[in-house]
């Protein structure tokens, strides 16, 4: 009986070895790598899956992407847990800069938001103007899924309600469901319940569980969706990998990086349009 207890030290050794291995792999992963806090749209649309191998090949940098909503991504950076943020809500980005959390904001690319809904369009909102569409949805109390997670898409949606003259916080009824989840989850829910939902076009194009959903409103310039990239301020967060982060940013806005973004397509359709040369973007 006592001999069996001799196994304990052996097990202890095994654990120590396993832990060591873990720490070691962690350390290995750290050289020439940066953490980029970004949005679910850049990941779910497959853009990063396409871009990052190119970055690895050209710059030798391993980019570790955290796909969060814009609000959460900026918060992650505020804690110093990311080197670069790559998000899409200019108002939130300017606030981040004003707090001294970011060094400089560079516009990178844009795509657009689209209003998704049941193919049959029971509310009759199909068209190319978002404001009357939202007014109709509200008037008819059609089921609407909101991200409700301070993501870039959520911020854009809330701003659009405001433009439509609707105080959504006050006027929302049971038809309006803020689910506090990512774009994919919101689309899954809309697909399962035949609801309307605002999505970025990239995620929609890559989304596979569409069910009866289709694009109903697109092409309004109010649906413009700009992406920006910023280095997290090393003066505030000394652990930020300044050189590698800036190299990544410089590549994204270089002619080569911009071309790579333009080249990303799903079924021949371009998802993002580079515009690093537009100072007002």
């Amino acid at each position, binding site marked *: 009986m006592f001999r069996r207890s001799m196994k304990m030290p052996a097990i202890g050794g095994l654990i120590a070895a396993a832990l060591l291995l873990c720490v070691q792999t*962690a350390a290995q992963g750290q050289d020439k790598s940066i953490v980029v806090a970004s949005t679910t749209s850049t990941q779910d649309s497959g853009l990063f899956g396409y871009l990052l191998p190119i970055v690895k090949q050209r710059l030798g940098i391993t980019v570790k992407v*955290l796909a969060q909503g814009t609000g959460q991504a900026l918060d992650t950076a505020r804690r110093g847990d990311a080197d670069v943020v790559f998000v899409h809500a200019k108002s939130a980005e300017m606030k981040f800069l004003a707090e001294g959390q970011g060094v400089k904001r560079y516009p990178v690319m844009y795509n657009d938001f689209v209003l998704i809904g049941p193919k049959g369009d029971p509310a009759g909102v199909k068209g190319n103007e978002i404001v009357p569409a939202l007014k109709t949805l509200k008037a008819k109390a059609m089921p609407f899924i909101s991200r409700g997670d301070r993501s870039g898409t959520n911020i854009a949606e809330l701003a659009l309600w405001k433009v439509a003259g609707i105080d959504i916080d006050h006027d929302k009824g049971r038809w309006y469901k803020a689910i506090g989840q990512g774009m994919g989850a919101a689309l899954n829910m809309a697909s399962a319940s035949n609801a309307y939902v605002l999505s970025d076009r990239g995620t929609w194009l890559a989304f596979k569980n569409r069910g009866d959903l289709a694009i109903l409103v697109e092409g309004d310039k109010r649906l413009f969706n700009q992406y920006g990239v910023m280095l997290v301020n090393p003066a505030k967060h000394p652990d930020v990998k300044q050189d590698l982060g800036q190299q990544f940013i410089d590549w994204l806005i270089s002619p080569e990086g911009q071309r790579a973004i333009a080249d990303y397509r799903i079924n021949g359709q371009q998802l993002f349009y580079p515009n690093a040369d537009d100072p007002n973007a």
Partner: protein
Amino acid sequence: MGDFTEAARTAAHLIVGLDAELRAIVLLSLGVSLTASVCAFVVGAPLGTALAVYRFRGRGALIVIANALLGLPPVVVGLAVYLLLSRSGPLGSFGILFTPTAMVIAQALLGTPIMVALVHRMMVDVWADYGGALQVDGASRLRAMVPIMSIGRDGLLTAFLAAFGRAIAEVGAILIVGGNIRGYTRTMTTAIALETSKGDLSFALALGIILIILSMLVSGLTLLVGRALTIR
């Protein structure tokens, strides 16, 4: 049913094809969850046994706490570990947030109360049956713990499997502290969550099927080990 048959077919393809990315994800899942549950075992088995063997003030409170923590939501553990390991947190200087190490820590914290509570429950009976005899033989309570754990090793294995099951199945904690980074901290469960959000439901389900097969393999192996120990 179409979704399920398609998922089963996809799962079969994935297993036969031995996709390199999938293999890395599977190995990371197993590595993280096994390491975490072994850590939970090393801490929890002696602690649970001690709670059965010793009588001291506050023992009842510890047992209640261990049992209450069985219901600890993984998200809460993940959040707590995140705040500790964040660059702005007390342990931020180690730089282990968004690494497999952080995931092991979170899952070990989740598994430890399971070990403590289950081991305590099983060892109470073993102690009742053998404790008196061991003490008559002149063993102190500390010395008695080793034979008690040896007699109750079936229970220890069961508790280990419960802790492992909790670890391999959870997504809430590792998603927060690992970040679901492709090729680095993406595991079976975080990949399933991701594929679901991309609307690829049958692929997500296929990954789920593979996860169940893995769990069965680990349980089977553990039980075989247990049997081998018993026969000898």
